[in-house]
């Protein structure tokens, strides 16, 4: 047993502690010490490092528990706040990306035509990015998203959501149409062989559907952009919008700087993924709300990732990013609905009559009331009482007065 080698046991324990970080904090708080006890008890004599099987098992189980807790994580108050922040930043990022595309269209189309004429082999800027000459529709889409941003900020969340939905539906239909025709006709992605009958639909399909889907559902299901602004403030909101626009707009910004940039090379595509990941990490990941925002916004990375992974020629893999875009745009919905259910639950509980704890838990009344007064905890509604009760029980647990960890124990104010 490791007890024969205290130094080795200490090393092993430290390594197991590090491994247990794979588990969510709440699970660690409840199970860490007993898990460590079991892990050390089952260790071989003189063992100093966790075995490969044990390591894989702990990492996999930690991941499974984390995934299992995602619905609760999203439905928590911070999940709702994150959705509100997304409803603030996602429409703005979509609008900026549309503007960037338009700028690329205006500045690079003449150059592109000249380049295509000069060299028939290989296109430097993809056809869908530039699109056919139907700039008018792109302007309409752009104005629609500007309206979404402005309406959201002025408190007309539902109208903003409706416009976002119309644009999103058109974009999804356009993408679906493109996908079907491309698969049927086996067309190339390149501008010169792109099926002409799709041209009228392309401006609608230029909308980044995953971000647009995030924007539409967060506007529909969250408290709205004004709440998001109250949470993060103007300065951080602008930083987030600028950072995410730079990350997601990377393939548009680079051709503006260097029109001959090989944006369909694998290295560039990987750089694009990295740019988005860095932008999400730098601008969003701060605090529990920021981490949830990052998690939601990171879904926008999926189409870029799908473009970056295949090593084959672009025309052959074109349906993959479109398919992934469609899938990711759909994936956003259940996630948002879970967050919304948390909000609905909170509203329902705010609407119901507060419980009287003198009746609910008469025997502990005096002690609990004294605790609330001493700690100056608000205790006038059921929700406040639920938190105060947990805090009281937590103190009792730490002092050893009760054996059950409070958050798993009985709370008379918690809905069953």
């Amino acid at each position, binding site marked *: 047993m490791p007890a024969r080698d205290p130094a080795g046991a200490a090393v092993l324990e430290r390594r197991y502690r590090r491994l247990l970080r794979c588990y969510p904090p709440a*699970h660690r708080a409840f199970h860490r010490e*007993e898990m460590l*006890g*079991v892990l050390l008890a089952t260790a071989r004599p003189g063992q100093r490092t966790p075995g490969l099987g044990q390591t894989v*098992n*702990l990492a996999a189980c930690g991941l*499974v528990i984390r995934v*299992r807790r995602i619905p609760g994580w999203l439905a928590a108050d911070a999940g709702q706040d994150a959705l509100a922040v997304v409803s603030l930043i996602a429409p703005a990022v979509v609008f900026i990306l549309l503007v960037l595309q338009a700028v690329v269209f205006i500045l690079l189309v003449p150059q592109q035509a000249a380049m295509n004429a000069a060299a028939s082999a290989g296109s430097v800027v993809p056809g869908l990015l530039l699109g056919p000459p139907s700039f008018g529709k792109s302007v309409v889409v752009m104005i629609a998203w500007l309206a979404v941003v402005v309406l959201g900020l002025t408190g007309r969340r539902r109208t903003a959501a409706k416009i976002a939905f119309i644009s999103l539906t058109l974009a999804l239909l356009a993408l679906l149409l493109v996908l079907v025709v491309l698969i049927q006709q086996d067309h190339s992605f390149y501008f010169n062989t792109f099926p002409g009958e799709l041209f009228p639909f392309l401006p609608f399909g230029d909308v980044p559907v995953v971000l647009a889907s995030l924007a539409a559902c967060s506007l529909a299901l969250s408290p709205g952009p004004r709440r998001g602004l109250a949470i993060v403030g103007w300065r951080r909101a602008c930083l987030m919008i600028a950072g995410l626009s730079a990350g997601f707009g990377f393939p548009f910004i680079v051709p503006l700087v260097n029109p001959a940039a090989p944006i369909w090379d694998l290295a560039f595509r990987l750089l694009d993924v990295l740019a988005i990941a860095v932008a999400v990490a730098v601008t969003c990941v701060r605090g529990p709300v920021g981490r949830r925002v990052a998690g939601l916004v990171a879904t926008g990375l999926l189409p870029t990732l799908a473009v970056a992974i295949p090593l084959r020629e672009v025309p052959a893999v074109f349906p993959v990013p479109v398919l992934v875009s469609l899938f990711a745009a759909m994936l956003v919905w259940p996630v948002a609905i879970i967050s919304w259910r948390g909000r609905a639950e909170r509203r329902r509980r705010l609407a119901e009559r507060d419980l009287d704890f003198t009746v609910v838990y008469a025997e502990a009344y005096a002690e609990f009331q004294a605790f609330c007064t001493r700690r100056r905890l608000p205790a006038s509604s059921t929700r406040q009482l639920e938190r105060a009760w947990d805090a009281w029980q937590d103190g009792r647990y730490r002092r050893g007065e009760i054996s059950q960890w409070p958050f798993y124990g009985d709370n008379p104010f918690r809905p069953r």
Partner: protein
Amino acid sequence: MGRWLMYVYDMKKRSMQEPTFLILTALAAGPQHGYGIITDAEGISGGVTRLQTGTLYMALDRLRSAGLVEPDREEIADGRLRRYYRLTDEGATLLGAETERRRASAAVAAQRLRARLAGGTA
């Protein structure tokens, strides 16, 4: 209760996983701590299944959420926390149902093997 019903409904659709069955069986004899469950489960399975620590605590977390097991008591042994778990009434009911299901399947298998043996020797 609702979650437990969902769990039971789910369990009725597909058979209980082996680690879950072993853990519930180990706890049927009385409250046990983690290491005790691992050694007992190994004995119950005839040494075939050895639960990994991660698997055990993932299953315990799930079973506790479903109300099938609950913490019983805690004690400190060799400076380490030991938490004992016990089977709840719902857990015992579910284990009973699963035992019956397995017994019925085993009976059918035994009957068919007997018939096959009888056919072969005839």
